């Protein structure tokens, strides 16, 4: 590891500097010097402040906030490192861009996730590290390796340690929609807990009409599990349905807390006791508006994935374990 040709550089865009710093601290590194800013004409400008020639470069930028600006920042940073002769460029995208636009579900609907995959490749990325892709098939959109990490080990740890009724076994894992059943059953199996499912009838995007509960939650703590929470319309209504069916408390554990639009208001006014999100997306400002939000730190998993990728070790350990 002494050879200078095999050293590592961690860059961060403006999307989530906090997470990048946590990852860097975990790896005992400084973030590499770069200025990513916007000109008066709104074009993104990337200035690299140190040599990346023949280095192993990691660029941390989740898809959140002003998505398109953050995407261009990431692409230009990749391009900058590529033209500066980096040996390998890994895009670390904890929350993938346009992950829900992954199929042609009506006439002339764009598959934007595929477009993003192509853009990352064309910019010069050699490798992508992401977490809880909305559909794991998105990995197939790439012609470069994609490591899709799971927040599940961190979620399991949180349920074991922080959900009050877990030790009495009075907890039910609930999937808020049919699409998430697999994710929720996996967690229920690993914790040896009951499982329930809410089925929703959706009329148009971001709008839910009617919900039906399958399973028994009476007198128990319900834990809703999902990969992302956007406007929180689904979670709010699911919590209501669970309470109406006799659940004593309702928690929600969600990997990507996008929490856009009126999400904070919806959570505040809902039957939810707590909404637990990971820090793949920054939500410090949202926490101020909504005291029910709690955080799981996934930076150890991401940092360990970077360390293992850099050293050429297997990453699959992280699919089932939280690094100490």
């Amino acid at each position: 590891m002494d050879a200078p040709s095999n050293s590592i550089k961690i860059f961060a865009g403006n999307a989530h500097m906090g997470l990048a710093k946590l990852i860097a601290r975990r790896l005992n590194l400084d973030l590499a010097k770069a200025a990513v800013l916007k000109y008066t004409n709104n074009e993104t400008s990337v200035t690299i402040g140190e040599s990346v020639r023949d280095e192993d470069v990691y660029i941390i930028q989740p898809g959140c906030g002003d998505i398109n600006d953050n995407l261009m920042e990431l692409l230009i940073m990749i391009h900058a490192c590529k033209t500066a002769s980096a040996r390998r460029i890994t895009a670390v995208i904890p929350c993938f861009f346009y992950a829900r636009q992954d199929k042609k579900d009506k006439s002339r609907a764009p598959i934007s996730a595929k477009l993003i995959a192509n853009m990352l490749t064309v910019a010069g990325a050699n490798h992508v590290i992401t977490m809880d892709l909305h559909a794991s098939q998105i990995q197939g959109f790439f012609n470069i390796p994609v490591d899709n990490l799971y927040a599940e080990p961190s979620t399991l740890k949180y349920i074991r340690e922080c959900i009050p009724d877990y030790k009495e076994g009075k907890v039910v894992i609930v999937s808020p929609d049919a699409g998430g059943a697999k994710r929720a059953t996996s967690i229920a199996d690993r914790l040896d807990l009951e499982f329930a499912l809410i089925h929703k009838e959706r009329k148009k995007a971001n709008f839910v009409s009617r919900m039906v509960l399958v399973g028994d939650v009476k007198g128990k703590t319900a834990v809703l599990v999902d990969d992302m929470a956007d406007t929180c319309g689904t979670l709010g209504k699911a919590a209501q349905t669970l309470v109406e069916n006799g659940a004593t408390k309702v928690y929600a554990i969600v990997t990507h807390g996008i929490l856009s639009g009126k999400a904070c208001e919806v959570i505040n006014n809902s039957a939810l006791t707590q909404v637990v999100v990971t820090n793949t997306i920054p939500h410090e400002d949202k926490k101020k508006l909504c005291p029910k939000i709690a955080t799981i730190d996934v930076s150890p998993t991401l940092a360990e994935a970077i360390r293992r990728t850099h050293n050429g070790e297997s990453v699959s350990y992280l699919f089932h374990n939280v690094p100490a």
Partner: protein
Amino acid sequence: MKNIVVFSGSSHPHLTELICNQLGLVPGKCNLSKFSNQETNVELFESVRGKDIFIVQSGCGHVNDNLIELLIMVSACKITSAKRIVCVIPSFPYSRLPNSPYTKNGKTISRIPESEKSKLENLTKTVEPSESKQKKNVSITNLGEIPASNDHSGQYKHWTCRAGNLVAKMIVEAGADNIMTMDLHDPQFQGFFDIPVDNLSSQTLMTKYIKMNIPDYQQAVITSPDAGGAKRATALAESLKMAVALVHKDRGFHNDEMTLVGDVKDKVCILIDDIIDTSSTITKAAQLLVDNGAKKIYALITHAILSGDAVQRINDSVIDELIVSNSVPQDEHVKQCKKIKVFDIAPVFAETIRRIHNGESVSSQYRVSDIYME
């Protein structure tokens, strides 16, 4: 015309309308919006299968949003079997980029707004990971000491990434078959694309404007505000048989001084350039011309981005009239600045679209374009 759909991106729907009016078409129906998480949503309501698709999107306003929107529109047409997709990008984004955030005499360049300047500190200062950390032995690798910023012996030269090549590759990768643009800042930019690029020229339009609107234009002097635009200015001067002058920045010496080459005393000056962004260069050049005795200053420029304090700067400057094209929406600028006049580029684009659709020569248009304008 058959089998042709012209879609408008959200950057400049008015220009698309003007182009479509010339062609006797109606812009293709589509819905362009954003989801609540800021992701761009594109819905096309017009069948595109087997048709020639023209998508008009200029690089202005929220450049990144508009660029990604264009890419998504192209990609949506591509996967639904459009025959040919032509991106009509009157003002090309990321086509003129500086290679450093600083000028040669150490100041930050004018297009970096005050609010962003603090981020430049990241270039010289080490970005510490959050909280205090004990650097015992580096577990991953030996990083080696990063030279301090005042140590010039081993200092890394800061450079800004030029994203033009990336933008070109992205548009091609999304599925575009052809690009139409106007007055590219660097003609070499065409070489970044692996698909045909029709780089239209505004020269005929400018010539026409000068002939019709500037009295005694033969006595006026065409002036380039910097050395880079000299070629553009001389070409125009030659076609109009006019005199040329050049303003040139003495950046080599440690000051902001500009030098004038040529005689402008008691003359009308017409400054020619391709892009006016923060307008700091052109207003300084205009001042220099007046200091050297010019009696009236016109500025004739293709792409008027006018970002930051540009409009204010124009208002305060000695420029008497600023004539720009509508490659970028100008309604707001015109409201704030009475000096701005606009010429219409839609006829040139409409005619080129017609020719591309019919498989006719585009280059012969440059000679006859006067016919197609009122």
